[in-house]
Each structure stands twice: as structure tokens, then as C-alpha cells.
């Protein structure tokens, strides 16, 4: 077991970080609002404490307060102490904090791309930290930087040093971020959602790495996450937070086996678990509403002085599938697998090749105008409900906008439809006059679903539609989608990276990688009896929300082939071979 409680803890019972009654207030128009309310915890050497909670729970505020990075003058610590060793660091000046950050406490953030300077090589960014804190001489810095990258198990570290952030993959960038954070050998590492923006297999690698480094160096880790799977996997103790208040604090084993608070119970119950979903009711094989054969989407990459095409990005390559009435087909895969592009191609939002039939109608070569009637049968719900609503228009207007665009209703009919649609998705009709910012994330996604439903489509493409939502809200939205399917016989193309969600919603699954199908078949066949190594790796990488069942450390993934090819080159295609019935798996 990698979770060693005895490594360096017994000899030193005093915590490295001790937070007592930490209270943070944020100034609002109506006076101070408490966003963090009397939080207390200790962090010992070599230990991992998780702060878990949904959005708005105050977990990131805690990290910022400890790092002295609260946005001033809006937010401030009004009460409590943060003891680092013997010293209270709450409310220290910026100058005093500079000696603490990186040296004694470091932080890694969610988005490694935005946390790295795009104009500096990895080497310069690492050396900068080392020199800033007098960790070594100028001459010794490059060698030290190289050693750090080695410690972080980056492949080909000499080459990485000379590269810029955009040349690295997301996982490599996060490794570089961790290297920078650990450069000065801090006692405490604060990791704020360090793997949320990463693919699940990369997440597994990063989590393994953090655990390994922690064991080697005895660093105390404060892990901030919304993902109970990550909590179970990484933490020794966890504090569950809600609306700025600690709801429950206990060992991870206790939290998962016998949560004492109602909130933690609810939160754990809402977490989708791989393999825990009930069997899907068998559906009578209905008519095909979507028929796709040999779909390819390729983008020309332009460059040079004349801005001519110089290379071709093969986003989707020869994909075929059908969706029947009342069926959910899930497209799973990591970023860059082409799954979203397929959804967009179905609605004619990207240029594509091949054959697509929506409810019997061929859509090849249709202009935007002639595509319109087809759009009445197929609609899309996007990932980020906040971004996919127009902030300057009332939600009521937006929900019925498709009806206006298609000239299907006018006047008081629109009002009636808006009321009906709002009730349909579980929102109250008197909210129609409000603007999007007046809703919560889950409510906004309901508005988006209502808008997609307004044309009474036969198929809805749900592109990561629940990924941006908190787990409890996610469960509700999934229930809503299921209810709509049961009642109206809707078909879904459900695009997601989350295997546990797939398990809940899918009738059939297609696993995508680099624009091609690796494995497809009925849900149970693909999830319980995966045949392709890639599917297996995806499934094995999913963090299990159960501290007693530890995921085995994974060997790093083989470097994947680039989907970018020179013009005219033929993309090597895979062939699907039948395993049994509808279950097919790719062979090279």
C-alpha cells in the first residue's frame, strides 16, 4: 500500500500546518459575506488531507488564504490562525509571504496551461524559481532543473527543458508545474484540483506521481478536489465542506464506510460508480433515426507566407454507427479523440465527408438553409451551460428562440410553449423573465435542455452536458434526461469522458481514440468485458470512490500517434472485428 502513515510521522507529532477557526469574508454590495466559516485542521508531515466539496464550498478560498493569495481588498481573513510550524502566517504582508511561498508552501493549480508562462522555455521557468529563492548558483541551475524533471518522470527530460509549454501535452505540463512547485523542496504542497482538467488516464499517472513524490520527500499534501474518487484514492483524512462550513472531518475509511453527516451521505450516494448502475431495460429494436457511415472530418492546417494548407488534422476517420429510437449511444474517449467533432458533424457545424442520414434524410451537401428542417430533428446540448446561454437575453426568450427561428410559433403561443418547456425540465414558469446569471449551474443546464427540446427533436446530442456540474446536480440532470427518454422516446448521442456516467446512461458504447473507434458494443459487453487494451486502460484509470479498493498504479501510456499528417498522406485505419453479437473491437 502506498499510503504509509508511518513514514516520518511518528518521530514528529507536531503538525507542519495547523489551521484554527479560519474565517474569510468577502465584501459584497450588502456587506461582508462569510465564505469560509471557522475551519480547523492539522496537516502532518507525509500526510495527505483532502478538502472535498462542491462548487462554492470554500475549498479554494482555504488554499488561497493559506498561500496569502486572497484577492485583496475584496476578501480578507477576519478570524483564526494559520500556523506554519510555530509561526502564525495569517495576515502577513506580501513581502513576508514571499519567503514562505515556494520555499515552505507551494501550490499547483487546475489548469497547467494558464499557470505556465507561454513565452518561456521549461528550463527558464524552473531556473527562475530556483534562483529567485537562492536554491543554487546560476551555473548549477540547469543541472538542477534537469534533475527535477527526471524526478518527475518526464520522458526525454533533456529535450523537455528546451521546449515551450504549448509543445507539451496536458499531463507533461502538469508535471512541469509540479516540478516548479517542488523545486524549493517545500514542506507543504497544496494541490487545487490538480487533475480536473486532465484526461482520466493522465489523471491516474499524475496522482500516482504525487503519491510517489510524497513518499520520497515526506511532503505534506493538501488536496483540494470535488471528486470523491480522488479523495478515496489519495487522502488519509478528509474534510467535507459545504457553503464555507466544514460538515464532516474524519479519516477517509470512516468517511466512506460510515459518513456521519447527512450531507456527506448524500454526496457519496450521488457519486456515479463504475459497475454499480442497474441494468438498462431492454428496448425493442426500433427504427434507426441516425445512420452514419464512413464519417470523416479533416481540417487543413494552413501556414507559410501564402497561407496555403501545409498539413491535415484527421479529427475523425471513417466512423460508422446507427442510433435507434429511444436509445442512448455513448461516445467515450479522451480529449482529442474526435468525439465532440462527430456531434458537430451531425448538426452540420463542421465540414465532413461520408454519409449521414437523420431520420431518413441525407444531409450531405446541404446548405445552412436547407439544413434547417433537419435541425428540427436533431439538437445539441453543450458542455458549459453558462457559456451556451446569451447573458443579455432572458431565458424565456432563449428557450423559445428555436421556435421563432423556424417560424413554428408566435405571439401567445410562444408564451405557452415556454411555460410548458420550463415545467417539462422542472423549472418554475415564473423564472422565465430572468437572465442566465440569476440561475445556478444545474438550472442553467435545464434551460439549455428546454431550449433543445423546444423543436421536439428526435435526437439530442449531449456533448459533455453534465461534466461541468457538481455531482449532486449531475445526478439530477441525468435523471431528467432519462425521464425525457422514457416519456418521449428521445434518442441520445451522449458524448463524455466520464466512464462512470456512461455506465449509468448508455445502451451502447463506442470507445474512440484519435478519431477512430477502438471498441463498440452493448454497455455491459464493453464495460464488463473490455477487449481492447485502450478500453481496459481507460477503465482501470477511473478513481474508485472506495478507499478499500485501491487502484493499481498504471504503467505510463505509450506515446500516442499524432493525428496531424502531411497533405496527401493516408491515415492508417483500424479494422473492427466482431467479438460477439454487436460487440466489435479494433485490430490494427
Amino acid at each position, binding site marked *: 500500500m502506498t499510503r504509509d502513515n508511518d513514514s516520518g510521522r511518528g518521530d514528529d507529532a507536531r503538525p507542519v500546518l495547523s489551521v484554527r477557526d479560519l474565517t474569510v469574508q468577502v465584501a459584497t454590495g450588502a456587506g461582508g459575506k462569510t465564505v469560509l466559516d471557522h475551519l480547523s485542521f492539522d496537516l502532518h508531515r507525509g500526510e495527505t488531507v483532502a478538502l472535498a466539496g462542491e462548487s462554492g464550498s470554500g475549498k479554494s478560498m482555504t488554499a488561497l488564504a493559506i498561500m496569502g493569495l486572497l484577492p485583496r481588498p475584496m476578501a480578507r481573513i477576519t478570524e483564526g490562525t494559520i500556523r506554519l510550524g510555530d509561526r502564525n502566517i495569517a495576515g502577513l504582508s506580501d513581502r513576508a509571504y514571499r519567503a514562505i511561498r515556494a520555499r515552505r508552501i507551494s501550490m499547483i493549480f487546475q489548469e497547467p496551461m494558464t499557470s505556465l508562462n507561454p513565452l518561456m522555455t521549461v528550463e527558464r521557468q524552473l531556473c527562475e524559481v530556483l534562483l529567485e529563492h537562492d536554491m543554487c548558483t546560476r551555473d548549477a541551475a540547469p543541472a538542477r532543473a534537469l534533475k527535477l524533471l527526471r524526478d518527475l518522470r518526464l520522458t526525454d527530460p533533456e529535450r523537455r527543458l528546451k521546449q515551450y509549454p504549448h509543445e507539451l501535452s496536458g499531463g507533461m505540463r502538469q508535471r512541469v508545474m509540479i516540478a516548479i512547485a517542488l523545486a524549493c523542496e517545500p514542506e507543504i504542497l497544496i494541490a487545487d484540483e490538480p487533475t480536473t482538467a486532465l484526461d482520466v488516464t493522465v489523471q491516474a499517472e499524475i496522482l500516482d506521481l504525487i503519491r510517489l513524490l510524497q513518499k520520497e520527500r515526506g511532503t505534506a499534501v493538501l488536496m483540494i478536489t470535488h471528486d470523491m474518487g480522488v479523495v478515496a484514492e489519495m487522502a488519509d483524512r478528509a474534510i467535507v465542506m459545504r457553503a464555507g462550513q466544514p460538515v464532516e472531518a474524519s479519516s477517509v475509511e470512516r468517511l466512506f464506510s460510515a459518513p456521519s453527516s447527512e450531507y456527506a451521505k448524500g454526496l457519496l450516494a450521488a457519486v456515479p460508480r463504475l459497475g454499480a448502475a442497474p441494468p438498462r431495460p431492454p428496448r425493442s429494436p426500433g427504427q434507426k433515426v441516425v445512420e452514419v457511415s464512413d464519417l470523416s472530418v479533416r481540417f487543413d492546417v494552413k501556414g507559410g507566407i501564402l497561407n496555403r494548407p501545409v498539413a491535415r488534422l484527421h479529427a475523425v476517420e471513417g466512423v460508422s454507427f446507427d442510433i435507434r429510437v429511444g436509445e442512448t449511444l455513448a461516445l467515450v474517449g479522451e480529449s482529442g479523440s474526435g468525439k465532440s467533432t462527430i456531434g458537430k458533424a451531425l448538426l452540420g457545424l463542421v465540414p465532413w465527408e461520408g454519409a449521414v442520414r437523420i431520420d431518413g434524410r441525407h444531409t450531405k451537401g446541404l446548405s445552412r438553409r436547407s439544413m434547417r428542417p433537419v*435541425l428540427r430533428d436533431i439538437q445539441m446540448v453543450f458542455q458549459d451551460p453558462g457559456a451556451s446561454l*446569451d447573458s443579455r437575453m432572458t431565458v*424565456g426568450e432563449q428557450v423559445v428562440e428555436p421556435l421563432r427561428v423556424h417560424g413554428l410559433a408566435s405571439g401567445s403561443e410562444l*408564451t405557452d410553449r415556454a411555460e410548458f418547456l420550463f415545467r417539462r425540465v422542472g423549472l418554475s414558469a415564473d423564472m422565465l423573465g430572468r437572465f442566465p446569471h440569476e440561475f445556478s449551474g444545474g438550472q442553467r443546464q435545464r434551460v439549455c435542455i428546454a*431550449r433543445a427540446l423546444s423543436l421536439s427533436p428526435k435526437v439530442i446530442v449531449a456533448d459533455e452536458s453534465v461534466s461541468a456540474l457538481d455531482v449532486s446536480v449531475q445526478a439530477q440532470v441525468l435523471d431528467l434526461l432519462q425521464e425525457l427518454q422514457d416519456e418521449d422516446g428521445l434518442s441520445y448521442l451522449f458524448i463524455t469522458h466520464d466512464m462512470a456516467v456512461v455506465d449509468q446512461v448508455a445502451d451502447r458504447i463506442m470507445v474512440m481514440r484519435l478519431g477512430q473507434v477502438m471498441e463498440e458494443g452493448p454497455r455491459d459487453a464493453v464495460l464488463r468485458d473490455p477487449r481492447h487494451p485502450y478500453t481496459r486502460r481507460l477503465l482501470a484509470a477511473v478513481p474508485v470512490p472506495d478507499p478499500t479498493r485501491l487502484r493499481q498504479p498504471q504503467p505510463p501510456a505509450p506515446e500516442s500517434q499524432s493525428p496531424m499528417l502531411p497533405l496527401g498522406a493516408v491515415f492508417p485505419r483500424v479494422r473492427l472485428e466482431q467479438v460477439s453479437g454487436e460487440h466489435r473491437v479494433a485490430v490494427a
Partner: protein
Amino acid sequence: MSVAEAFRPRQRGRVRAVLLELLRRPRAAFGLAVIALMVVCAVFAPWIMPHDPFAQSFDGLDLMGGPLPPGGAYPLGTDLLGRDLASRLILGTRTSLIIGVVANGTAVILGAGVGIAAGYFGGWTAAILMRFTDLMMAFPALLLAIVLAAIFQPSLMIVALVIAMVNWVQMSRVIYTETRSLAEREFIQVQRAIGSSPLRILGKHILPHLLSSIIVFGTLGISTTVLLEATLSFLGVGVQPPMPSWGNIIFENQTYFSTAPWLVFFPGLLIVLLALAFNLVGDALRDVLDPTLKGRHG
């Protein structure tokens, strides 16, 4: 409130509601008051002016033949020809307002139009429109204005159009960049997925988000246009004397600034006041029109 009222956009009465909201904000109310006062001055100039603005009288000069300082029969003093400054400023309001509103308005509409079209449609449309704006930018604005004004017979409207011609370029650049990033946003993608026509997307979903930039640029442009008009007048290709404008009053008299400061101070003050008034109203308008800021006062 019935549901119908709840979400039907309050088209009628919308202007009224916005106006009322503006009046509730002290700074915006001040700006509106200043603008209203200037409009009144411009419209009723002949009745308000205390003297004939064109009459050169010896009464308006001191014994040495110099201009009179403010006070007495000439409340704001007189200029070098003994003309009443107050009357000239009041009449000049017409010119300056027309220039400010017409020239700037044309520049805003043209700039925004070009910027939006290029930003949304991209490709060839953008290439042609943006190369054209680059070309316009490459010309020194003043030179261009002089050439245009020399080709056409100088009149108030021509001067306004000339100023518009040189001022729309920056606007279109800013709007172009903003439209490009807006067009990539998810809610615009959604509109495409719904099947909305480009015109609808531009008018209903892109333009409202550009309003704040347009308003900021539009109000900032007021003072630059008034000053550009003054420069043109000074160079003899603007508003022709003896017709007064705030700008040409300043330029006529700037060399006498040390002996007769009021001749530069009062028209300058009016230009500042006009620009400030439009800025205050513009700022408030931007906040009032943004639903996410509802209820917050700046």
C-alpha cells in the same frame, strides 16, 4: 405579473425605462442635463444670444483696440474684432453638436458595421475589409481630411463626413477583434445549431455584447471629433469663418492666450464639458443595458 409580461422583452417603454434608470443615477443625470442644455442653446440660439455674433463693434474693444475681458455688457468678454464671445459660443454650439453627433455617429456606425461584418464572416470578407482599414490607417488622418475637404466644397455636413471618414478606422479594428472572439463563443455555436440566420445572430446575439465597447468608443470620439473640426477650421478647410465653432474660436485666438485667456478658456471649457457629459451618460448607459449588473450602482 403574468408570465407573458415576464419574459416578453419590454420593447415598448424600454427606452422610457432606460431613460428613467439613467435619471436615477446622479452622474448620468448631470450628463443628460448638460447635453439637454446644449441642445437647447443650439436650437434656440437666435433668441438666446445677447448680441449679434457677427457684428464687429468698437464698443467691444478697449481704448487700445484690444478685446474686452468678461463682465459688463459682454458677459464672457469679446474677441479681437470686438464680437461678443458669449453669442459666438452659443451659436458655435450648433456647429460643434452637429459635428460631434453626425460625424461621430457616422464613424461609429461605419466602424462597427465594417468590424462586425469582417469579424463574423471572416475569410475573404475579413481580408478585404481589414486590408482596406489598414490602408486608411496608413494615411495620416489630418492629411486625408485636408485632401477630402479640399476636393469637396467645405460645408458643415462635408466637414462632418470628412471627420467620420478618418475616425471610423480605430473603431472597426476594435470591434473586429471583439466580434471574432464572440463568434467563437459557445452561445453563438448554439445559435448555429438551432439554425438561426447570420443576420439574426449578428443583430440579436453579437451586437448586444458589443454595445459597451461601441458606447465607450462613441463617447470618447465626441471630444476628438470636436477637436479635429477645430484643427480643420484652423487650417482653413473646416467650418468657414465667420461661422463660429468652439474649435475655430480657440484656434483663432490661441496666440493671444497670455493677454486674453478667456478667449481660449471658455470654448475649451465647453468642449471638456460636452465630452464629459457624453462620457458620463455613456458609462451609465453601458451599465443600465447590461442585465448582469442590474441593481448595482457605479
